[in-house]
């Protein structure tokens, strides 16, 4: 009962904090290029504005178009119950591991691609085909990178991996671990639509992927889609932070360690967001046909890291 309550609280915390993370990243990027930028709370204002607006839906769309935003929101909430954020034993951990988390995200990607096609606009189809092509290349690498850790930890359970690696800090500089980190980081950029792969700040038809699929959404549907993508970003960053820097994630539910867990997660996320802002300011977007090269590179890193987990002591 207590664990269920804590799990729901964790999901609620993630849901509330997701737009803030996006806002902090936007503000940081603006500051780095010398603009003042919007307030870090701007995404909340955007969401409130969108919730107050009347949605306009093309009469040619089917039920898929209307269901997809709710599906995106609910899959990200379920994933927030599965991913260890502020403590290692989230509510649904006995139910699944990284494969379940990835299949939830895959379900969301699939429905978003369908919704992009559903509206029948040229951009929707373009975004859908790009997003599915990238997802097919990115998804295996995520699982491979986490499996490299799972082999070392002797369990495929996400909370178990974190507990095991936290107990052996020397593992954190093990070569296989570093490679898995690099592979996961690259693929996270692709999965969450960050800069070398997709530019979340533009609506340029030559380059956009996620934005092209959600072009037809408006009103509270758009608010849900935007919030769900912020959630996915937060969950991926938290997964990266907790799996590869597994320190300060409490296993118990006592209030003291839990507060410490929230603080540790906030600190790790802040560090990652600063790193992301620096990277996004420094690199240009890759040409679309060179993105598979990047993803194949991260896949190769993942393969090497899994191999080294078997061979290196």
């Amino acid at each position: 009962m207590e664990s269920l309550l804590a799990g729901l609280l964790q999901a609620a915390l993630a849901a509330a904090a997701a737009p803030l993370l996006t806002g902090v990243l936007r503000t940081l990027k603006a500051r780095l290029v010398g603009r003042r930028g919007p307030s870090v709370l701007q995404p909340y204002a955007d969401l409130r504005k969108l919730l107050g607006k009347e949605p306009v839906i093309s009469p040619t769309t089917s039920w898929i178009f209307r269901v997809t935003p709710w599906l995106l929101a609910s899959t990200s909430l379920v994933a927030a119950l599965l991913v260890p954020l502020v403590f290692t034993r989230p509510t649904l951990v006995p139910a699944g591991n990284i494969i379940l988390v990835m299949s939830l995200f895959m379900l969301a990607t699939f429905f978003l691609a369908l919704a992009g096609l559903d509206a029948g606009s040229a951009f929707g189809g373009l975004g859908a085909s790009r997003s599915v092509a990238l997802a097919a290349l990115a998804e295996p690498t995520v699982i491979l990178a986490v499996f490299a850790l799972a082999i070392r930890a002797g369990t495929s359970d996400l909370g178990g991996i974190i507990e095991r690696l936290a107990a052996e800090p020397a593992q954190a500089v093990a070569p296989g671990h570093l490679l898995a980190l690099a592979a996961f980081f690259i693929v996270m950029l692709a999965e969450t639509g960050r800069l070398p792969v997709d530019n979340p700040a533009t609506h340029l038809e030559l380059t956009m992927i996620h934005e092209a699929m959600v072009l037809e959404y408006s009103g509270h549907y758009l608010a849900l889609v935007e919030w769900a993508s912020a959630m996915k970003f937060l969950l991926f960053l938290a997964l990266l932070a907790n799996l590869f820097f597994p320190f300060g994630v409490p296993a118990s539910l006592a209030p003291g360690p839990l507060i410490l867990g929230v603080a540790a997660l906030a600190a790790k996320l802040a560090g990652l967001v600063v790193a992301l802002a620096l990277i996004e300011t420094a690199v240009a977007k890759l040409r679309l046909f060179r993105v598979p090269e990047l993803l194949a590179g991260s896949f190769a890193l993942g393969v090497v890291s899994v191999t080294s987990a078997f061979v290196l002591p």
Partner: protein
Amino acid sequence: MTRATTLLGFLGLVLTLLIVWRRSWPARLRLFVMHALLVASLALAVGIYAGQAGLLLVALVVAVLKGWFIPRALARIAAGTPVRPVAAGTSAGTALLAAGGLVVVAYVVMAPVAGRSTLPTAGAVPLAFATALLGLFVTVTGRDAFGHILGFLTFENGIFSLALLATYGLPSIVEAGVFLDVLVIVLIMEGVTVQIRREHDSIDVDRLRELRG
């Protein structure tokens, strides 16, 4: 000790993977310089731990020769060519997947060898072997003369670290002979590529093949 050599060997492998990955020659050259410096620090580490003063000299020679002199010759070879190939279908995706496969092969082949050795450096032996294999792979698949030479030199770096790790320090005279060979080879290659470029305006292998009757 084991941790240090394993980490260095591993960083070397990652740098080699990046050499396979990158298409632009200045970036690959920079990666090669980093790889050479890494090999030098590997020689330094083994020299310090094994207490062989000769290896410190070897490390210095590697750093100067491969980290400074040979890259300058390579830069002269590549100067004037486009930074990255402009032709279509030059994605590194397949090459990277093949490289990943080669690393697995290297592990499978070398793991029994490393397992039998009692040296503290044995853990890094498969890594050095994988580096050498990847270097050979770059040599075979390189698209122009620069790629071939870079691949050969990476291969040589891998062989050198393999010798270093498997024997815990070679006699310096052997090292000196190898260095002399590599140096002479690079200088000859520089001369040959300059000639090729003067004759054919390009060092791209595909364009040279067109001349065959």
